């Protein structure tokens, strides 16, 4: 097998060429420069192009959706408070999710320093959902916000999931003359409902 021989020769070559080993540094805890990480999270998320809405009760989600997406088409919801209106055939493939106007899901974590939310296969299926929809709404509990990436990774166990992603705003590009354009290949808008 080509790959088996290659494996052997690459590892041998590395062993022959690698330098002396050095210790791996321990990563210390870093204090957040933010006095209030919930507030800070909102500020950074907004700067990334996300819309942040504060709610006191999950039942208010209905109103938020109505107010922010008055003419919305098919909805695919993984949140109890909002019914799905997008029709899926049985045994649907990822490609069948084309046509979802709005997807609503739970975010497991928020990161104050960069305004990102973490969603994973623990709470989301199929994986294509937050990318293929035109608009994305995530429900995030304030108590799930961590100050920085180090703190966030302490809560995550990658070994337990199939896929997980930090999403820090709507899909964007600046590939044409550095002009920022929202809505490249993924969702055109990103709304975070902070509970």
């Amino acid at each position, binding site marked *: 097998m080509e790959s088996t021989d290659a494996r052997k020769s690459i590892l041998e070559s590395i062993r022959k060429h690698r330098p002396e080993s050095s210790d791996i540094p321990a990563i210390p805890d870093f204090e957040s420069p933010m006095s209030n990480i919930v507030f800070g999270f909102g500020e950074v998320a907004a700067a990334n192009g996300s819309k942040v809405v504060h709610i006191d009760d999950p039942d208010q989600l209905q109103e938020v959706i109505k107010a922010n997406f008055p003419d919305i088409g098919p909805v695919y919801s993984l949140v109890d408070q909002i019914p799905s209106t997008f029709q899926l055939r049985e045994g649907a493939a990822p490609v069948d999710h084309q046509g979802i106007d709005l997807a609503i899901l739970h975010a497991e974590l928020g990161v104050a320093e*960069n305004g990102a939310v973490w969603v994973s296969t623990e709470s989301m299926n199929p994986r294509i959902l937050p990318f293929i929809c035109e608009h994305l709404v995530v429900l995030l509990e304030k108590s799930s916000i961590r100050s920085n990436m180090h703190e966030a990774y302490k809560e995550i166990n990658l070994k337990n999931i199939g896929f997980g992603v930090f999403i820090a705003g709507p*899909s964007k*590009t600046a590939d044409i003359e550095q002009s920022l354009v929202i809505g490249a290949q993924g969702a055109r808008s990103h709304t975070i409902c902070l509970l």
Partner: protein
Amino acid sequence: MGSQKSINHAAAADKFIANESRTDWHNASVSYLRKKRDVGAALVPEWETLRSLASGIKNNVLGNLDQYLEQFEKNAQANGVQVHWAVDAESHNRIVTSILERHKVKLLVKSKSMLTEECHLNPHLEARGIEVVDTDLGERIIQMRDEGPSHIVAPAIHIKKEEVGELFHDQLQSEAGATDPQYLTEVARQHLREKFLNCDAALTGVNFAVAETGGVVVCTNEGNADMGAHMVPLQIHCMGIEKIIPRQQDLGVFLRLLARSATGQPITIYSSHHQKPKEGGEMHIVIVDNGRSKHLGRDTFRNALKCIRCGACMNSCPVYRRSGGYSYGYTVPGPIGSILTPGFNLEKYKELPFASTLCGACSAVCPTKINIDEQLYKWRQKVYEEDYLDKTKETGLSVAGNVLSSAKKYKRASALMRWALKWMPRFMTHNRFNAWAKKRELPEVPGESFRDWYRKNRK
């Protein structure tokens, strides 16, 4: 590494700077990225600590790379991932082709992967009747123009919106004369959506591969890597051996540094962690050497393997900014390209270590603290030792040799050079030792050579 013909950086740069306003425009666009990086970095109080951590983690990786790769493979396999090894570009291309052919793939969507550029995967697949579509907007633009990337983060940074408008009008039937980036991006979105919905397989590059978890992390702003990878059962991720990091917690350090160093964003819009194949799907990871393990054996130069491809060094480089990515003749241009390429083929890339003022701006921003400017100088010595030098550079080198023969002198000279760059950019870029930067307003007679100037100022 293609033909043996030497890359003539100075001549290529000459061509680039022939169009003065375009050179200025390129310089300004690239500088803008650097400015945004400075703002982003300044917002993180522990920035310098993060750089030291990143550098320390990468040092540890280089010393234990074989073990981490084995650990990575074991964990990936336990996750149900199929792991392949490729010694060089050809074997990488063969492995990818055989996976695709086994699945009768006709259309492959690809997302930004410098490695597959390095391996020239696209022409290889196209010759076998497999359509390949690059899905990052910038990559798609250059693919439609039949060009390679001119920057590792912003591959189409050298192209104007008018040119994109024309290209899309020709190939995607968009409105004639359109130049609005919003409109043009929407045209590309519709075009690419069609490709995503009809593809048979997806291939992405890898930003980080975690030994501890057996998974890979891919960072994009557009969401193109995810639109491909999650759409179809077959996903392939191609990575160089140096992409390994040991622990999940190390991702915290690198993700904090990467986007801020690249564009000043606190994090890319999507940081995707691929661990296991989707239900009923297949996930493949191809681990590629292609000269890297040999480079690991070069004491002086191995640090280049710590690169996380953020692009900050090229954004900071006065030579890159004014000579453009293509003048380097390699997929990875700029300062990092200039220290990687001589390791692949010294004769072919002998000019690149000279495409620098040794100002040190690259090393000062590099998130993994690669000593790029020192390596540039040391490659110059190698070029000299191996007798590849042509006359123009020899003078420059002997001055550099004189200056750099003592650490103290070197330190002082670097400080002077930095000062000169800041205050006397014209002098620095006009003097006759910098063949790459011969440019539009050459002074009639160079007032003094660097050597004279250095002598006068060395006190």
